[in-house]
């Protein structure tokens, strides 16, 4: 395939993915917006004033970046894992596999689809956050780069989950038992300074902490983790997992016999 043909194939997968989640926006875009709005109301308006300030910021302002990031992580992941496994389940993944589209284009197409959904939800949640807090965008480039890299990372992990999944149970196990606990323990609702030194060190093993911290730095200018460390961890994970997922596609794991 020529480069321009590959670009057309890539665009086709991205358009297909965007149309897919847009068509079912009641299941894909609206629920995270409502859930996050409830977080803002309960933790921000009702409980927040009694907590006081965290790192010099009102509690609601402190948790906003983490809640946006949580929505982005969950939705990037969910988009790719459900779309890829759905295509495997219905066998329509074969439409791509029998075509000359290279595997890395299939991978990039699904990742971009996941990023689009993650960012769409992220933007919608940010818009809702405006009603509840005084949003400040201290370092815009940090905000954009962190959210983009995080969406890419969790789109890739969603695809790896989709490759290994053999049933619909398999695509909900990781989000329920791994992703959600890591997100909640990744400094969305608190600063790790509030933890004992043991739990502070344990938290450093949680990759989501680095994403939430960097993203919060973009909004507030404060972070639990040095910015360069966060970028290094996120980019490192992206490189390793991208290679792993491409290897799985090239091997045809669960796709070709």
């Amino acid at each position, binding site marked *: 395939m020529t480069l321009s043909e590959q670009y057309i194939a890539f665009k086709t997968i991205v358009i297909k993915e965007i149309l897919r989640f847009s068509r079912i926006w009641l299941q894909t875009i609206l629920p995270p917006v409502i859930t996050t709005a409830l977080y803002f109301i309960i933790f921000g308006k009702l409980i927040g004033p009694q907590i006081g300030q965290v790192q010099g910021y009102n509690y609601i302002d402190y948790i906003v970046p983490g809640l946006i990031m949580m929505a982005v992580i969950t939705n990037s992941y969910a988009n790719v894992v459900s779309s890829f496994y759905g295509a495997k389940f219905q066998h329509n993944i074969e439409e791509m596999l029998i075509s*000359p589209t290279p595997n890395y284009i299939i991978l990039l197409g699904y990742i971009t689809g996941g990023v689009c959904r993650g960012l769409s939800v992220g933007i919608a949640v940010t818009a809702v956050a405006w009603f509840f807090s005084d949003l400040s965008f201290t370092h815009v480039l940090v905000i954009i780069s962190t959210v983009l890299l995080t969406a890419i990372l969790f789109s890739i992990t969603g695809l790896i989950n989709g490759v290994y999944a053999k049933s619909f149970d398999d695509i909900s196990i990781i989000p329920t038992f791994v992703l959600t606990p890591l997100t909640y323990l990744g400094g969305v609702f608190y600063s790790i300074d509030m933890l004992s030194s043991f739990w502070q060190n344990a938290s450093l093993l949680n990759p989501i902490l680095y994403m939430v911290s960097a993203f919060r730095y973009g909004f507030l200018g404060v972070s639990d983790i040095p910015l360069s460390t966060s970028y290094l961890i996120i980019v490192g994970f992206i490189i390793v997992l991208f290679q792993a997922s491409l290897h799985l596609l090239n091997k045809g794991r669960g796709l070709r016999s």
Partner: protein
Amino acid sequence: MEKALHIKNLGKTYDNGFTALKGIDLEVEVGDFFALLGPNGAGKSTTIGILSSLVRKTTGQVSIMGQDIDVNFSAAKKFLGLVPQEFNFNVFEPVVEIVVNQAGYYGINRKTAFVRAEKYLRELGLWEKRHEMARNLSGGMKRRLMIARALVHEPQILILDEPTAGVDIEIRRSMWAFLRKINAAGTTIILTTHYLEEAENLCPNIAIIDGGELIENTSMKQLLTQLHTETFVLDLVGQLDAAPDLPGFVCRLLDSHTLEVDIERGSQVNDLFSVLDGHGIRVNSLRSKTNRLEQLFVNIVESGRAVEAQA
């Protein structure tokens, strides 16, 4: 002359140890309408799977329009359109999107893809359904959708794996007409089917696979000359108590009004009627008992298995 398909010593053993193909050799000429027949589990779908890259071969060589799949599978794939046995599209996508997206995977820009989608959906009677979700289509429409999807990148070879399974007679015949038309326009067609009447009607050349081996590869005409007898069922005007003794013909009385007669190759139906007249037996109507190819197919597969059992 370049072959549409060239297969040499193709073998496949799955991870569970099952050998689906035991080294088959097969060639299909450009422009042919080729039947690939065999009982269930014979190795037809594995062969098609290898051609379309969904199954990895264990041994052998495959060239599609001269492109070796081990050297440049991407180029070889462009020549191939596949209509699989099972529905394999996203049932939650509109019909037109399924066809247009498929074109995109072959690097065809969206504008051209829409033009071609309209062309093939119209030809296959699906244009009015273009905005319908695929799940709302009938079984016959879903089969035609898969044909439109397989043709949208205008492949030189179209592989159809039981395309008319579960389709009513009227739609089946309209699909035959459509396939004949695209074959006449130059598309090489490879067809697997369990409707042997379909293969006999459409395909001048045929191969039969059984147990992962190619047991027949010849022209349809040549194959049918192997038939030694053809059986006819006669609906009689009067009644008979026993099968008559007709010189040169083997008869069986199915019931008092129905007689079954075997006619040897070389004999004529006229001879049979002369003999029947001589015995005062009048005939209301006559029909062939089985499809000729069906009888031959059963004979070939059974004799192949008998030889294998003896060995």
